[in-house]
């Protein structure tokens, strides 16, 4: 179960984003890392919503003409992308304000300037 491909792939992207957030001092790279983390979770959700060959679960005698995926996941991911966008936009605004005041986006240098 745990060794399925979507677990590995999306957790790889998630961890990559997390490392970008933790190890980088530049706020822009932090923003990129956070967005990577968000997209990896969305990807995981979307992949889990796939049913084999688009078959409808439970009902066996279904018509072959229409195929489905899990509808809840689709609507959820739209919502999640929107929420992610909101917090990233807010973070970018703060980064812009910081850059306007300190002239740098590096968190270490900002701390030095603050004294």
């Amino acid at each position, binding site marked *: 179960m745990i060794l399925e491909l979507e677990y590995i792939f999306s957790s790889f992207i*998630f961890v990559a984003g997390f490392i970008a957030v933790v190890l980088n001092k530049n706020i822009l790279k932090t923003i990129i890392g*956070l967005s990577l983390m968000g997209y990896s979770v969305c990807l995981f959700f979307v992949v889990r919503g796939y049913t084999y060959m688009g078959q409808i679960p439970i009902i066996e005698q279904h018509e072959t003409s229409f195929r489905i995926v899990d509808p809840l996941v689709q609507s959820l991911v739209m919502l*999640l992308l929107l929420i992610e966008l909101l917090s990233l936009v807010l973070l970018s605004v703060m980064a812009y304000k910081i850059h306007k005041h300190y002239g740098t986006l590096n968190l270490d240098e900002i701390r030095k300037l603050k004294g």
Partner: protein
Amino acid sequence: MVTLLFFIPIFAVIAISFINGERIKTIKTISVLTACAELIVSVRVFTRVLSGTPVVKIAHNVLGLNDYYFMADGLSILFVLVVNSLLLLVTVFSLEYIKRRGIGVKQYFMFLFAVFAGINGTLISGDLIGIFIFVELASISSYILTAMDRKDENYEAAIKYIVFGTISSLLLLLSMAFIYSKISSLSLADISGLWTIYRNVGNMATLVVLISALCIKSAIVPFHFWAPDAYVSAPSPISAVFSGAINKGLGVYLLMRFSANILAFDRVIMQLLAFLGVVSIVIGVVLAIYQWNYKRLLAYHSISQLGYIFLGFSAANPVGILGALFHLVNHSIFKPLLFLTAGSIETSTGKSDLKEMGGLSKKLPVTSFSSMIASLSISGVPPFNGFWSKLLIIIACVRAEMYVYALIAAAGSILTLSSFLKVQRYAFYGFLKDENKNVTESPLSMTVPMIILAFLCVFLGILLLPGIDRSFLGLALDVIMSGKEGYCNAVSEGMLK
């Protein structure tokens, strides 16, 4: 009825957003009315919960779901009452405070009510989707409130808070994804009924992700780095909201709900929470002693007091959980009170450093007196409310045979007392500095909330009296102790009604 709890603040946000920012009086009237309405609705819901089964509202066709429900049971209503009383007091306090600090009235109240809509929604949602949406609503609004002063040094604190908050939201989302891929449902009742915790890799990964997400929200020790900066840079009433409502509503409530009603007091999780609690008590209070900024000191104490709540809860016996719930109510009273006194000092003298204060007790008698009561209460001096809850928690630790933890909790209480003696000595007693000669006491709208909170600090011990304890804390205790089956039964019972 239940859904009004978050619809009222959302309507207030919409209404305020249409009003011209110059018409300050109208905005203030709307804000106070909204806060009153919110408190009335929560008392009304409380009486209905008190009279019998939990109040359930089924919402049809939300995101294509048909089993989407909102539920207010004993545990939710405890938090709802605490949070909404705090909202009224903070709103009244803010009326004068933001004028003196020159913060925009319109933006401030819009985001304040958005935060409370989010918290109330989180408290009554019966679905992980709803919980996530409301948590994000509250978090994103609180990110903005952190930088409300628009000073340049505040943006760095805001960035720190946003990064931590976003990571926590994403971890919550990841755990949602794991749970959904296991049981194909995100309703709490379904998760509680269908999810059996076997010790395999998938379940452990889910639990680690979930618990670390909620620990970041409640600012417990290994995840506390955002808290002191955010508390200091936010306006004082917002710091009160942070420690009194946001940490509790988004972090502690969800942790309690999950570990009691879904994980059914899993032993490893409980031990983990007890360890985190003790570490928070020690590290929070030790870091607090060295602080000279009044609000930063209070922020570290907030971390330390949350440790007590975790410790009492993780003893997993009725005494400990009662103690944790009672300490939670108490902490939502004395910590906001301390932050409000910090705000009062800030507006009167313009100082936040303890070294620059001194002798203020003559100039600010009400502030000084209420701060004294809150200090005694937070350090657990007998007649005040903090003593009773800490006593219960320590008794529970001894009963659960966690003797070392009980000892550490008692020692933490003493260190808290010493740290607050320092506050009293440097801020309110000692010599009056020359530049503080012309300081005057804050106006009535700022002192009345402080007096009410101080009054509660003295008399809230009555909540433990037999008879009263069954009707407020007992309701929440029953919900927590009923575990998995109790929660599922309560939901189905409420849905049928």
